[in-house]
């Protein structure tokens, strides 16, 4: 059966056979870089289109339906518009930080792409501390947001950035603790090990109620971390006009926008990997026949299916809930989510020690 | 409380007040100088209790100005119209009632803005609708604006 992993392998063998090992590695770097960038752009287009369609159907509209086949080229047209637009830099802004911030945010989300397993044996970087790497790198994006808000020399931006800082720093704790519960059950930080451990069932089914609680907390925390409604206080359209990116225009604004959507993709991919088995098909214990049928569905389809399901859930939140206030947001984290996840972690540890999980 | 009783109470506080009962509500005509003590009485007298100032406006009568207060009592349901006469058209001054009915703060600013009535002791007497450097008071009958006003 032809799989993405096989294509990648044969490509590497061909490169190794044709060029010297140094050149081959260099060419691979370039190839992977190009692929990540194009995947990035493609993701942005798809997710923006998806969000517009999802919101449209929730709001009794049809959404974009003019450009391209049923409006599919609408986001492409929007991107072209944004690229040719002038990117203004306000007079009083700190020019260097102002122009650097969108790139910092974008680079952070690009880096996060590295350890994600998109399909069976298809991964950019099989690092043995994948989970740690993800939680470490994802914290950097808040610096970009703070930078953007502060350097804009605009009070709305500043308020948005301060909100965003408080919010991301707090919710990282819950997200981290939720991830930890799976790490404890598996006993490894490597994403490949975590996926492999879900051969006979996904963690959300195997880990009893504590893992389900972790999963719910994870989804809430990452919704907040990616500044999505109902936790979109950093942008808070009706309060702060556009929050930290009030002063951004043209492509610099588009980069923030793109980074937001790629971040959603990444957190959902990680959620799918940790709790829903990543590319692992749905296997139920010892039902050999059923498991065999599930194996016929390509692993990349499984991965993308789960990820996009989670993305849809997060979009669903956005178009249903009102926004929280800043003090309610912090209360929710420090008074409810954090204690619950700490206690939950204890339960998970107990389950792991006693070997009660399946 | 009937109009007669209200009249009796008002006459106690401002003996020079005249009354007019032709309209829907009882009208009281007073001099601007008598206004503040009467206003306090209207608000605080237990039998009157006019706690709701629902309309405050001014009229330019060419010879003089008047400020019109529409009052009602939420407790008793009776209403009253007080018309304070301001004789000096060049510098009309009347005492503010911001401290008695807090809504007056905005309404008085509006009357100041459009009719030029100064409210003494008003906490923040500035123009409300028009720009700070606007000349003249548009709702006065002698107001001229050759550019923006169209004469029919």
């Amino acid at each position: 059966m032809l799989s993405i992993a096989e294509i990648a392998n044969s490509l590497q063998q061909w490169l190794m056979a044709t060029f010297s090992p140094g050149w081959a590695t260099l060419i691979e770097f370039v190839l992977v870089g190009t692929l990540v960038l194009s995947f990035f752009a493609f993701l942005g287009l798809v997710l923006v289109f998806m969000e517009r369609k999802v919101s449209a159907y929730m709001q009794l509209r049809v959404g974009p339906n003019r450009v391209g086949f049923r409006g599919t080229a609408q986001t492409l047209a929007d991107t072209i518009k944004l690229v040719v637009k002038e990117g203004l830099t306000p007079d009083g802004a700190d020019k260097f930080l102002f122009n650097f911030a969108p790139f910092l945010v974008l680079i952070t989300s690009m880096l996060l792409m590295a350890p994600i397993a998109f399909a069976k044996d298809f991964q950019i970087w099989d690092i043995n501390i994948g989970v740690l790497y993800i939680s470490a790198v994802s914290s950097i994006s808040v610096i970009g947001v703070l930078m953007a808000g502060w350097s804009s020399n605009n009070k709305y931006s500043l308020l948005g950035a301060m909100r965003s800082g408080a919010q991301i720093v707090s919710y990282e704790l819950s997200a981290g603790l939720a991830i930890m519960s799976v790490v404890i059950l598996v006993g490894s930080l490597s994403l490949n090990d975590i996926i492999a451990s879900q051969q006979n069932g996904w963690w959300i089914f195997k880990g009893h109620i504590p893992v389900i609680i972790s999963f719910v907390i994870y989804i809430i925390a990452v919704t907040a971390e990616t500044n999505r409604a109902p936790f979109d206080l950093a942008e808070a359209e009706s309060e702060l006009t556009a929050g930290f990116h009030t002063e951004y225009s043209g492509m610099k604004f588009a980069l923030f926008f793109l980074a937001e959507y790629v971040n959603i993709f990444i957190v959902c991919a990680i959620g799918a990997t940790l709790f829903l088995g990543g590319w692992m098909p749905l296997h139920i214990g010892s039902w050999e026949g059923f498991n065999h049928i599930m194996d016929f569905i390509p692993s990349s389809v499984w991965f993308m299916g789960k990820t996009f399901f989670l993305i849809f859930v997060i979009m669903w939140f956005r178009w249903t809930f009102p926004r929280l206030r800043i003090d309610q947001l912090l209360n929710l984290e420090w008074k409810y989510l954090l204690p619950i996840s700490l206690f939950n972690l204890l339960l998970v540890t107990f389950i792991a020690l006693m070997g009660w999980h399946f | 409380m009937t109009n007669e009783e209200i009249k009796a109470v008002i006459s106690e506080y401002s003996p020079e007040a005249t009354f007019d009962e032709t309209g829907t509500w009882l009208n009281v005509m007073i001099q601007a100088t008598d206004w503040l003590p009467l206003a306090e009485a209207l608000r605080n007298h237990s039998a009157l209790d006019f706690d709701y100032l629902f309309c405050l406006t001014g009229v330019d009568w060419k010879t003089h100005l008047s400020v019109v207060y529409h009052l009602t009592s939420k407790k008793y349901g009776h209403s009253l119209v007080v018309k304070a006469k301001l004789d000096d058209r060049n510098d009309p001054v009347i005492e503010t009632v911001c401290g008695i009915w807090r809504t007056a703060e905005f309404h008085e600013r509006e009357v100041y803005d459009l009719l030029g009535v100064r409210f003494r002791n008003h906490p923040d007497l500035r123009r409300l609708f028009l720009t700070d450097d606007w000349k003249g008071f548009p709702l006065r009958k002698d107001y001229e604006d050759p550019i923006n006003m169209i004469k029919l």
Partner: protein
Amino acid sequence: MLEEIGTTEQGDLVINVGPQHPSTHGVLHLVITLNGETIKKVEPHLGYIHRSIEKMCESLTYRQFIYSTSRMDYLSAHMNNHACAMAVEQGLGLEIPARARVIRILMSELTRLASHQLWWGAMAMDVGAITPFFHAFREREMINDIMEETCGARLTMNYMVPGGVMFDLHPNFQVKTKDFVRFFRSKFDEYDELVTNNIIFQERMKNVGRISAEDAVSFGCSGPVARASGVSSDIRKLAPYEGYDQLNFTEALETAGDNYARYLVRMQEMRTSLSIIDQLIDNIPEGDFQAKTKAVLKLPKGEYYSRVETARGDFGVYIVSEGGTTPYRIKFRSPGFSNLSALDHIARGCKIGDLVAIMGSLDLVIPDIDR
């Protein structure tokens, strides 16, 4: 202006909210002083849409000036016209036909529903939920269609004239209105599910923006804002006009005085309006839709004041006549103006997010305030 915008000595942050801001619903300009996220002071700057309608009306005849009032509170256009028509009728001593009275009530209640629906959507949008706005507009569209058929306009409607209404009802009116009432009733539970019972929404609204009954009276609040504090202020009950006293309805009252109470009062008012429409829609009397009036109206010398209950509260028209064909002085008592004057008092000590919610719950329409 620059000094005003900068940070003041005490370390306060001064922010200009508006005149171009997504949640001021128009061109309201608020200068807010902040301590962190907490509001210390709100100072409204008005006049961005001031057209001096009162001055304009002084040179318009009693038939003409009514049309400018549709441009004030454009969401309660019928009720504004109604108040003006009533003031003129009061001056002329005109008795209007029974059919015209019922048509006026029906139109007013439909307008109130349309206005409250828009408020409901905007209120939800102010606290960050965008979807309800579209749901509200689905129903509002039906009212707009009914209005379009009968009076030719969808927003700045001019239908009520001294002596009655301008035209008779469109033949489809009864059928369409009944369809609308049936449809809207079935969707009203959806409103509750989507917004009212939402835990985040309740957290955002309850105990925020509280105003006591005494303050509400002192600030001259009217309409739902006053009723949410427990102040009975429905002109339809206090000073019934056009036969509202013959209808069976109750005034919506809440006592909490916070955002949520104002929300509940308006939701209750929508139900009240539906029941009023139910009572009248099958009982529209036959007859003239307009009383006979002279071509040129002349009001006798005197002063006339008429009040109606618009969607925002007590709307008053004060006409001073010197006996001519045009008013000598006219004053519009707009409910939004008095409600806005309480904003500073209500919003102090709240967060920025609350300010937006409070403005939403006060239901400010800026052209109504600026006139």
